[in-house]
């Protein structure tokens, strides 16, 4: 199904099942420990051996020698795979560094060997016996030091530079100016399930039970890396213990398991040990950002400039913190630049809301600083500069202007309208709900016992991405619907919203829908990432259901003809209560399925509506913090997010997406930072004691309000993504609240007490 005109009224609008706060259909499995995650799959194939991955002890250089003799001789050891005996390997398009290093080493903890043994204990002990001699070479590990050598270059997703009007002149002549620099830290996804895979070969056929957000990408990347045809690869990933971007791509667990299983000639299971996660896998790059905002005295932005520096290995992508600044606020003169800085740290890649999460941490703090200079309320300042068109819309990377014109041949609109933008409403509702009028604009005024109390707010903004997604839907003779798609559920609620979509479309109760996900033998979906999954994958299911409805209607026609009943009018057919109905006639779906059932498969394919309109999601965050007047410890007291993100397919699971993102935002604001040892070139705090993420005690009750919104330009579901919107702006809202509480502006995240106490009033 091609989606190239805005959706009109369709069966989804009934909202009998979809749009309702259904509990997750996978809940009984997840809460009883019976949902099968990758490393749990003892049942899928017998005789599994254990693989233990050894990571490089240096960040950059070469392996001079590897002595495997003691490890090989260790009891229970079956085989050891290194770059020397792995055979010739390719590299996946999405990987920057090789997943198996050696002799050249590209980053700390790059996998250099997998030891396979009969038991986990044996594999681990033997791995410690591998003796490696390295030649260490000099590397670049310090973003701040390398920043002057940063270059503005596009990556596959992002145009690095843009400009409208004359920023320099407008900024220098602006009556009120802000020029401030901010930084965000390297961050680790730190999902609770480490990357894990069981690999088994049957002749030249490889099966991977793994934990991966993007099944079709995984197949294609395995194919490129192992240099085997895609048809020989099956990837199965029905349950994923968190991803947040860390499992978008093929990672070393899967490759090492596959290589190990091939060498051992039996199935091998591999789970990366926690201490490998920050350095072996990917992380979000730190950023350094410079914000310049010029405005008239009454708060009209006349110039806005945002420059952003991030680091990565050669060939890696950007953490493009300046991108949302092209779209969020009005202003006639503007510029953005995203600079790539070469670093020899582990590979940087996407983490929840790449670009916007760190970008808004800076922009939205700067907006508050500017509001204060103007003597304006921070919300008033933002709303004054609201816009219904995109102020700065550069061509996509690599596209000539002609190529980026729409399919209809219309010239690329340099200022496309937003499909729907209700940012102002988010702030208005939020301000009232949160009691924003009780905020004192002068900082450091509110005290509650030991605590200095402050409120903060920030805009949330994240683009809505739509992408092709296919599904297969089957009706069986019990009237039961089964949906199959390689879509993944990484905690997002895919199982449930897909079941709700199918139930709504086919007119059956939720209990009569079975959803099977995460298997490359199913039709290829959008997968999970970039908050595109929920909207795109349910649209794919919608498309398949439309096809199945047509097939059922045809059967109904035949059925009526056979029974010599009045002709069934397909065009006004309604699917409801397990029946297809037309006028006064109705037939049970079960009766039309036949013994073999009816199957339909289709994909949603998106036209150019996302070029003619800017599709984005919006929100407003409100937080209240307490700062210990003595120690500078910061604790969250209240949190509210108001979100405008199209139709909410399930308010219960969508709310969870938002509170989860808010929680990760608290981490980024207050505690998360991978600390670089600039001599050795690695992240030092590479476990969950050293890299602190929020715990229960850090998170107060969280409130989420969704605006009642539909976006027919986005998809037939009229929905948008919401999983990343929730993190966007949270860090800045907290920084603004800390400032409001203490009068101390910290521009370097995370905001830890050591950055505050020197500037707070002395204790007596």
């Amino acid at each position, binding site marked *: 199904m091609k989606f190239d005109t805005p959706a009109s009224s369709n069966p989804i609008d009934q909202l009998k099942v979809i749009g309702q706060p259904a509990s997750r259909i996978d809940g009984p499995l997840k809460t009883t420990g019976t949902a099968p995650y990758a490393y749990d799959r003892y049942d899928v194939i017998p005789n599994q051996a254990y693989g233990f991955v050894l990571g490089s002890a240096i960040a950059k250089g070469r392996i001079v020698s590897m002595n495997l003799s003691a490890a090989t001789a260790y009891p229970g050891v079956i085989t050891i795979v290194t770059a020397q005996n792995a055979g010739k390997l390719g590299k996946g398009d999405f990987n920057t560094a090789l997943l198996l290093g050696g002799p050249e080493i590209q980053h700390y903890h790059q996998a250099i060997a997998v030891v396979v043994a009969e038991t986990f204990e044996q594999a681990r002990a033997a791995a410690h016996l591998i003796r490696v001699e390295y030649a260490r070479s000099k590397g670049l590990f310090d973003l701040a030091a390398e920043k002057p050598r940063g270059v503005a270059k596009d990556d596959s997703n992002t145009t690095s530079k843009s400009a409208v009007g004359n920023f320099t002149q407008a900024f220098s002549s602006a009556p009120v100016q802000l020029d401030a620099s901010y930084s965000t830290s390297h961050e680790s996804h730190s999902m609770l399930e480490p990357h894990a895979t069981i690999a088994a070969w049957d002749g030249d056929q490889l099966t991977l039970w793994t934990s991966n957000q993007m099944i079709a990408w995984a197949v294609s990347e395995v194919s490129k890396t192992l240099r085997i045809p895609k048809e020989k690869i099956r990837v199965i990933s029905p349950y994923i213990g968190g991803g947040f971007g860390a499992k978008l791509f093929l990672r070393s667990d899967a490759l090492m398991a596959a290589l190990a299983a091939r060498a051992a000639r039996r199935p091998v299971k591999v789970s990366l040990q926690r201490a490998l996660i920050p350095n072996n896998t990917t992380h979000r790059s730190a950023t350094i950002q410079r914000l310049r905002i010029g405005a008239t005295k009454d708060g009209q932005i006349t110039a806005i400039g945002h420059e952003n520096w991030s680091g990565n290995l050669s060939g890696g992508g950007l953490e493009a913190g300046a991108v949302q600044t092209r779209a969020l606020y009005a202003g006639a003169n503007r510029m953005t630049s995203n600079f790539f800085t070469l670093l020899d740290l582990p590979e940087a890649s996407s983490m929840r809301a790449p670009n916007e999460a760190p970008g808004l941490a800076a922009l939205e703090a700067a907006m508050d600083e500017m509001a204060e200079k103007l003597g304006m309320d921070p919300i008033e300042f933002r709303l004054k500069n609201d816009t219904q068109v995109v102020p700065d819309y550069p061509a996509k990377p690599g596209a000539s202007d002609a190529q980026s014109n729409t399919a209809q041949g219309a010239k690329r609109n340099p200022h496309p309208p937003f499909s729907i933008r209700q940012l102002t409403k988010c702030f208005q509702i939020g301000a009232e709900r949160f009691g924003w009028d009780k905020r004192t604009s002068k900082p450091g005024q509110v005290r509650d016992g030991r605590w200095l109390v402050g409120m903060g707010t920030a805009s949330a903004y994240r683009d809505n991405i739509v992408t092709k997604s296919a599904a297969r839907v089957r009706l069986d003779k019990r009237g039961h619907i089964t949906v199959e798609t390689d879509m993944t559920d990484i905690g997002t609620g895919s199982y449930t919203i897909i079941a709700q979509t199918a139930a709504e479309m086919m007119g059956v109760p939720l209990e009569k829908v079975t959803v099977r996900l995460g298997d490359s033998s199913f039709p290829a979906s959008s997968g999970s990432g970039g908050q595109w999954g929920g909207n795109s994958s349910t649209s794919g299911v919608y498309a398949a259901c439309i096809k199945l409805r047509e097939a059922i209607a045809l059967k109904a026609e035949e059925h009526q003809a056979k029974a010599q009943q009045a002709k069934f009018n397909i065009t006004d057919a309604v699917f409801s209560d397990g029946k297809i109905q037309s006028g006064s006639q109705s037939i049970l779906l079960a009766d039309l399925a036949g013994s073999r059932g009816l199957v339909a498969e289709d994909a949603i394919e998106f036209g150019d509506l996302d070029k003619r309109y800017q599709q984005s999601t919006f929100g407003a965050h409100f937080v209240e913090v307490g700062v210990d007047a003595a120690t500078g410890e910061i604790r969250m007291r209240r949190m509210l997010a108001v979100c405008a993100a199209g139709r909410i397919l399930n308010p219960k699971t969508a709310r969870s997406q938002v509170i989860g993102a808010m929680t990760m935002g608290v981490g980024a604001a207050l505690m998360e930072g991978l600390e670089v040892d600039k001599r050795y070139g690695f992240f030092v705090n590479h476990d969950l*004691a050293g890299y*602190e993420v*929020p*715990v*229960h*005690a*850090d998170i107060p009750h969280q409130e989420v309000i969704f605006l009642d919104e539909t976006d027919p330009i986005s998809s037939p579901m009229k929905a948008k993504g919401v999983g990343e919107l929730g993190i966007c702006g949270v860090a800045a809202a907290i920084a603004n609240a800390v400032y409001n509480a203490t009068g101390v502006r910290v521009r370097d995240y995370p905001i830890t007490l*050591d950055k505050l*106490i020197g500037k707070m009033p002395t204790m007596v």
Partner: protein
Amino acid sequence: MRGFTYERANSLAEAVATAAHTKGAKFIAGGTNLVDLMKLQVETPTHLIDINDLGLDKIETKPDGGLRIGALVRNTDLAANEHVRRDYAVLSRALLAGASGQLRNQATTAGNLLQRTRCPYFYDTNLPCNKREPGSGCSALGGYSRQHAIVGVSDSCIATHPSDMAIAMRLLDATVETMRPNGLIRSIPIAQLHRLPENTPHIEYTLEPGELITAVTLPKPLGGTHIYRKVRDRASYAFALISVAAIVQRDGAGRVALGGVAHKPWRVEAAEHDMPRGAKVLTAGLLSNARTTHDNAFKVLLVERTLASVLNEAKG
């Protein structure tokens, strides 16, 4: 984890004797620190003596009004003990500020005292560490050292002792009772249990090889206001940046010990007479020979501010 043999000890004397004559033997009780370090091969015992069945898990009042705490009393039970809550509240508070509910259910009194540092370079066997590999160098010096010690440090090591409980024990002048390999009992004042790193940071305690802590005793209650203030980035389940344990009497006199600043619980008795003079003077006395790094220099001010807050709180 290297291979080891395992036994469950049935008698104290036997356990101590076995430990003394078995090279590479270690006692295991809660296991929360040892098992973790064995996985990384930071600890490589060849023989484990499980002492959980030795009945060292009683808390008894002593004739002098003090308390005798068995070495194997779990952290949860010690914190929940009614005598401790009433008379040694700082100890209860310190225990409850540490680790998590699960870990406190496992961890023991003696094990907590003997916890090893959480320095990330000690944990990462790819990096030099004098504590792990004597003579290899200290990676924390010149490296990431925000959590590290600021007093009592040496050129060999700037690691901290991670325990909260031990800070309160030091404040309370606890005494450690041990059984030595020869079967004899001895008492070690807690001030003498932990060592400063000097140039032998791998030797952390004054215990002899095979010597087993059997109990910790507390002198009779001191009265006063008991406060344990742990300062950390996240609200729970995190090691201290610094912590302050204090007992303050009505007249402002009292005692104070610091955590998160040294290789051992940090207490300077001579500085305590300055308590009534306020936090600044007290801090100067407690941290007089501080040697900080770029990353942890903030701890000096943090100690001062936290002490000020604690002294204020004690005033009521």
